């Protein structure tokens, strides 16, 4: 605990000394009368000043929340000595706001008193938020001395991105070997009818197509498409973002990634994650709810970190990108490194989809002549970049904040239906 004297203490001491000396020099009793109140305040204030013995604890009702949720926080203040005036402030990180309650707050603590302050915190933005530190400043009754301390208590709140509801997701071109919800293009054991073929030794009787057999005077059997799972890799570009106020392209990308991960995990697909940016993070594809939690937890730590290191797709571990996986990239296409990595992925034959999280709504068009020309050139270059990706056979759709993610996915689906496969 740090103690320091306020300017008031020095001021009153100076006034008292000056007044008493002047009284002696000028021999005027009135001067003593003018000085005595300040001397009295000084003496009383110092006599009443007691160093506080504070105990501060900050507790959260929940340590996990969804974006937009409210979380209760309890601040426990206890002192064995009297604290005449205690200013308390709990520092909140960006993305956490006070919905109800007072922060900072000023209060009085009697000796041995325990106070519990209730705060209602709003989780405004996804992320792993560490609350605190908590600052406490105690004063004596007349405000001559101040004691300050910083509490070590720092609870953590993990705020998960709020997910959209998707009616249907993109279907990968290739399936994997495990059973799932995706009808494979290959023929095998399944429900979906594929074709008929002449009977062969070993074919079970239940697969005989009696109507076709009667018409051809020989046994024919049904063939079907098996239901298989797929590998989906969610690729989040965190090299750069465009931000305006509380919203940015990374926020949109993270929410969309969480939504897609939830949807694909629900289809029994294996989902992996690559956060490609200043800090590279990856998750090997996996199935189930545990994998979903892993992905969302990894997303919470995603942030834009400035880096000049030129990363290529080779830095990603081989197991993270299994063959025949569908890669869905969410990128503002602002950094050449991520664009290069996406083209590289496409060149390696991956089924690639790029959702261009548009930075245009976050960068208003300048009013002046030269700047507005530069802005127009920038948007044209973005169009050209999207065209370049489409020419390489990559399904690209521009996503703006006001458009639902489902609409963007439908746009991609249409492109994938009619686009020719290309190699770069």
């Amino acid at each position, binding site marked *: 605990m740090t103690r320091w004297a*306020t300017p008031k203490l020095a001021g009153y001491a100076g006034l008292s000394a000056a007044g008493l000396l002047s009284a002696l020099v000028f021999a005027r009793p009135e001067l003593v*009368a003018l000085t005595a*109140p300040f001397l009295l*305040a000084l003496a009383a204030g110092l006599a009443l000043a007691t160093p506080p013995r504070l105990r501060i604890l900050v507790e959260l009702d929940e340590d996990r929340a969804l974006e937009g949720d409210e979380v209760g926080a309890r601040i426990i203040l206890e002192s064995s000595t009297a604290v005449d005036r205690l200013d308390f402030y709990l520092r909140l990180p960006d993305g956490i706001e006070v919905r109800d309650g007072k*922060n*900072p707050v000023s*209060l009085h603590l009697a000796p041995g008193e325990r106070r519990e302050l209730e705060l209602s915190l709003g989780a405004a933005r996804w992320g792993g938020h560490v609350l605190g530190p908590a600052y406490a400043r105690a004063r004596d009754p007349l405000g001559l001395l101040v004691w300050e301390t910083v509490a070590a208590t720092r609870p953590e709140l993990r705020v998960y991105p709020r997910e959209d509801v998707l009616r249907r997701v993109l279907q990968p071109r290739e399936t994997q070997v495990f059973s799932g919800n995706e009808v494979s293009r290959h023929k095998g054991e399944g429900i979906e009818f594929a074709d008929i073929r002449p009977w062969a030794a070993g074919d079970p009787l239940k697969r005989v197509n009696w109507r076709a057999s009667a018409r051809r005077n020989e046994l024919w059997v049904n063939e079907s498409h098996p239901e298989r799972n797929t590998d989906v890799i969610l690729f989040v570009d965190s090299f750069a973002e465009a931000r305006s106020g509380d919203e940015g392209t990374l926020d949109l990308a993270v929410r969309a990634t969480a939504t897609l991960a939830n949807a694909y995990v629900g289809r029994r697909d294996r989902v992996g994650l690559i956060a490609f940016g200043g800090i590279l993070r990856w998750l090997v594809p996996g199935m189930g709810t545990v994998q979903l939690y892993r992905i969302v937890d990894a997303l919470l730590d995603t942030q834009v970190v400035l880096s000049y290191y030129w990363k290529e797709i080779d830095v990603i571990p081989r197991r993270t990108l299994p063959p025949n996986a569908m890669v869905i990239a969410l990128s503002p296409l602002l950094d050449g490194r991520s664009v290069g990595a996406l083209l590289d992925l496409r060149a390696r034959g991956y089924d690639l989809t790029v959702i261009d999280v548009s930075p245009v709504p976050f960068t208003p068009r300048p009013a002046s002549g030269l700047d507005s020309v530069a802005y127009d050139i920038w948007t044209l270059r973005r169009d050209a970049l999207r065209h370049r990706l489409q020419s390489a056979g990559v399904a690209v759709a521009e996503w703006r904040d006001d458009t639902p993610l489902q609409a963007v996915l439908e746009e991609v689906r249409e492109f994938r239906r009619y686009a020719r496969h290309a190699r770069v």
Partner: protein
Amino acid sequence: MAALGASIAYVATSGGRFADPGAGLGAIGLGLLVLGLVLRWPATIPWSILLVGGGYLLSREGNDVVDGWAAAFGALLLLAAELASWSIEHDARIGAERSLTLRRLATLGALVVAALLVNFMLLATAGVAASSGVLLAAVGVAAAVGAVAVVLRLLRA
């Protein structure tokens, strides 16, 4: 500002030979206090109090009779200094509990009343024992204030 303004008004209406220069000096002190309040600079408070006190002393120049209102004048200066400190350190972002504000007001009121009482006793003593001189009066004041401090400290412990 009102407390300091009342002090200056008293100086201006005291009718002494140097009442107007004294009030002028006080007005400079008031201006300094206003500046300090606007700039939230607490170092200006003692200087403004010093200027107003100096103005009062100037207005008493040539008057040998001890002014009985000096007791109230001193308490008014203390009130002005305390309220100015409160204003400067007040932060609207900090939500103060109502009981705390009432407690501060009560403390301030008690301090001003105690200062008034000490001043009345001091001036009464000075009037009765004028021959003993200002030195003894000052020592007496210091001793009385020290005694009050010791009592408060013991009560707090």
